[in-house]
């Protein structure tokens, strides 16, 4: 059972790495600016999921998966706290990813505006044609 869990986790991990590769291909090889932005969002989302996976932990016991980093009691006893620390996943990558998502959203919006402006001024979003423009 443990072997199977590890295998599934590794599939998840390697799919993320391949996703990074595919999205980088999209960013570099596709000529359309819109497709570049789509590939960039896939890339940043994959990086965020990878960061969250760093904070994941082994199951505390074979029957019980890790719990989210939220205490479910308003007045926990010290025994509750000890159990919580032994079962919860790492909250720090989640907080950093929250930051990264919001900044990524803002940057994406800005890129969309730039692309819209390029399209309005030049009538194309193909970087090969934008690069040939003069003046």
């Amino acid at each position, binding site marked *: 059972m443990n072997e199977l869990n590890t295998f599934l986790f590794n599939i998840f991990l390697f799919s993320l790495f391949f996703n990074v590769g595919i999205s980088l291909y999209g960013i570099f090889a596709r000529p359309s600016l819109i497709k570049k932005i789509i590939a960039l969002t896939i890339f940043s989302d994959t990086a965020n999921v990878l960061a969250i996976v760093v*904070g994941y932990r082994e199951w505390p016991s074979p029957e019980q998966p890790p719990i989210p980093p939220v205490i479910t009691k308003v007045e926990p006893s010290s025994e509750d706290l000890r159990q919580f620390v032994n079962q919860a996943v*790492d909250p720090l990558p989640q*907080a950093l990813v*929250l930051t990264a998502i919001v900044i990524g959203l803002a940057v994406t919006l800005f890129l969309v505006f730039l692309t819209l402006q390029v399209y309005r001024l030049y009538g194309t979003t193909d970087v090969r044609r934008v690069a040939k423009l003069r003046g």
Partner: protein
Amino acid sequence: MRVKRLLVLGSLIVLVLTLSLAFTNGALGYYPLPLPGVRLLASWYLYTTLNPWYPMFTVMSPEAVTAIVWDYRGLDTLFETAVFFLAIVGALALMRGVSLKSVLNNGGDKDKGGLSLICKTATRLLTPLIIAVSASIALHGHLTPGGGFQGGSAAAVAPLLVLVIFSVYFLLSKGVSEKPMLILRTAGLLGIYLTALVAVLAGLLTGLNAYVFQNQPKSSAPIGLPAQVSNTLISGSLFFFNVFEYLAVAGGFTLVFILLSIPEEIAKSFISGESHE
């Protein structure tokens, strides 16, 4: 072409499965994944996030992620908010001179266009629900997963739906236009900075020691925000940060969505300088 794509896809899947199998059986060296526990720093955060026995370190919030975002790593989030608003300022600068008032005057009918009556009625029913859910996400940010950013993004979905299903003129005629959103965003930002500085201001008035971004009272700095108000946990400054961030993010995103949905001909005529008075 189709066969080639399927071949690429199939070989990628086979490669992933083989690599995972090899990794699981130790062919690439043995690494215990996932890690058996969390790092020392993480367990310290988890241990002190709601811990009345450690008044020096606790945030008094059961949600460790929000505690990190707005207290342990609060300055990071402050500058992140600054980056977010710089991006919105950049979008505003690109669209400078494009006035929404003239869009409303030139566009004419607010009830023209949009999707079918079924979509419109469903949107009328859904929009208040979306706002209510987003407010609940933001106001419970210190108790359950969620917070100001998530709530604000969810709230911005409501005007986006109206933009797509009705039209930009309908949204403008309802009073959701550029200037009120700018005011909402600025008010949210001012609230965030005031909440960050309130302990220092109180310290200056009373002559006691206090810090920027202080949440709970410390032994060396006895000024802090209350963890509970009439037996309801508000976790000091976290509640106020979440509320103001909610307003700021919802206003900022709605502003950008409105700017993005200005009709193409009108924006072009402004850029090419035809509509300058």
